[in-house]
């Protein structure tokens, strides 16, 4: 058995990873909840955001500073992508949207591959190996920052959805498109805003991941697999579900790494995933089917 200290440390580390996982999942679940499609370009957008953060660092901008520019830039990119590419090319057919996002992901990934080869790059920030001493364990500073910033980003997203007219319009369109049109909500605009918010979350996640992670043209896929798991666990379309699911998956991964060995950490995720699908197909956190 492990000492309680070690388990507690693993849980803390899991929560920190989980917060970033949550951020990568929240955009996916939001887009699913509102547009009723799975955005297959999600991983490619994350990759693109990590490259953007990487090149910002190359020209001397720290990722924690770049995030304030990249989040709005990726919001605008996501907005434009949905409004001018995905929306018009899908002609209102869900399965077309699916194919368009899949096509987009292939295009983005291959453009990145052509431009940057499949080299793995990472950055070297001064605080990369800084730690906080808790007595029983050390916490990596960039991961603590990532945790705090992910929570802040999730809180901002929640405030937007709960309190602003735009957020209310997003929730209205998710459930009742005709009713929304009849109060004057521009549904195409709301779709694009939703897509933009998802992309902005990915930009934030990218800036938080970069100091402790590497980037290469397929890096987003690893995260997106976990994000899909979280979305299903949290209940498709549920934003709070994705947040809780992200934290949960982070802890599961960390604990199974501890008990099964570092390289098997992700197996725990998929075991839990399959178990949940068998027992509670609508997700862990009480979301409606």
């Amino acid at each position, binding site marked *: 058995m492990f000492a309680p200290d070690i388990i507690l440390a693993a849980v803390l580390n899991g929560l920190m990873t989980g917060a970033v996982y949550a951020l990568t999942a929240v955009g996916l679940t939001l887009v699913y909840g509102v547009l009723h499609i799975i955005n297959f370009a999600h991983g490619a957008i994350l990759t693109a955001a990590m490259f953007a953060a990487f090149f910002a660092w190359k020209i001397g901008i720290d990722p924690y500073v770049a995030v304030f520019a990249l989040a709005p830039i990726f919001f605008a990119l996501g907005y434009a992508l949905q409004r001018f590419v995905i929306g018009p090319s899908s002609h209102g057919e869900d399965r077309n949207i699916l194919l368009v996002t899949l096509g987009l992901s292939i295009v983005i990934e291959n453009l990145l591959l052509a431009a940057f080869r499949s080299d793995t790059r990472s950055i070297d920030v001064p605080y990369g190996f800084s730690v906080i001493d808790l007595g029983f364990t050390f916490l990596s500073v960039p991961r603590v920052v990532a945790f705090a910033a992910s929570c802040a980003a999730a809180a901002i997203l929640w405030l937007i959805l709960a309190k602003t*007219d735009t957020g*209310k*319009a997003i*929730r*209205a369109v998710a*459930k*009742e498109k*005709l*009713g*929304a*049109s*009849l*109060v*004057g*909500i*521009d549904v195409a605009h709301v779709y694009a805003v939703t897509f933009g918010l998802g992309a902005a979350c990915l930009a934030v996640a990218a800036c938080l991941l970069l100091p402790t992670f590497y980037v290469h043209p397929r890096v987003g896929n690893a995260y997106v697999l976990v994000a899909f798991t979280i979305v299903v666990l949290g209940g498709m379309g549920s934003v709070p579900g994705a947040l809780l699911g992200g934290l949960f998956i982070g802890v599961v991964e960390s604990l199974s790494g501890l008990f099964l060995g570092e390289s098997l950490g992700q197996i725990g995720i998929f075991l839990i995933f399959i178990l949940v699908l068998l027992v509670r197909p609508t997700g862990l956190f009480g979301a409606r089917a």
Partner: protein
Amino acid sequence: MADPILSISGLVAGYGGVDVLRGLDMQVSPGEIVAVLGSNGVGKTTLNKTLSGVLRPRAGVIRFDGADIQAASPAAIVEAGLIHVPEGRKIFPDMSVLENLELGSYRRAKARRARNLERVFATFPRLLERTNQHAGTLSGGEQQMLAIGRGLMGEPRLLILDEPSLGLSPLLVEEMFGLVKTLNAEGLAILLVEQNVMQSLDLAHRAYVLENGAFVLSGTGAELAANPDLEKTYLGM
């Protein structure tokens, strides 16, 4: 008579390969209640959807308040003050009563949201008791009040009501017709689609009867109520 607030000419609309409306002409004057009658599936809801811009007409002109709107977006039509309370309510089920009402002023009259909320609550005290309840858990009658309240939040200049009494108990149906009368007495022009033919004719200043894609009868409420052809149209004899 004053210039009509709404006038339609040669309106054609439909779905896929079928024209449901085949050339409609009608007018609604300011302050009027105009009823549109017709049996199930003749295209009353199709007409309302076309007026509010969610369905594009194939031909014809729709003039609202002096401007052509047949090519306008639903948002622009709401902004102009033509507000449609749809059949089946179409409220936002997992949002609170208050949020539903707030969204009624998403596009129009946002600056006067607080005042208009008070007005809606004065009209529908039942909604005030339930501001934080999810709209989807309201009773059918309450949902209908919410749908109308949401429409009123946008300060309509013409209000389209599509079967507001559908599924209501006789007592609530009375209440609904009373409400339509009150709203109209305050100066609101109303386009009313109803299944309660005699009650609607009693209330409406004028009415149109839709059959086979065209208005086959029209006139004042009293004229139509006395017209033997009305029954024929309805019973399809």
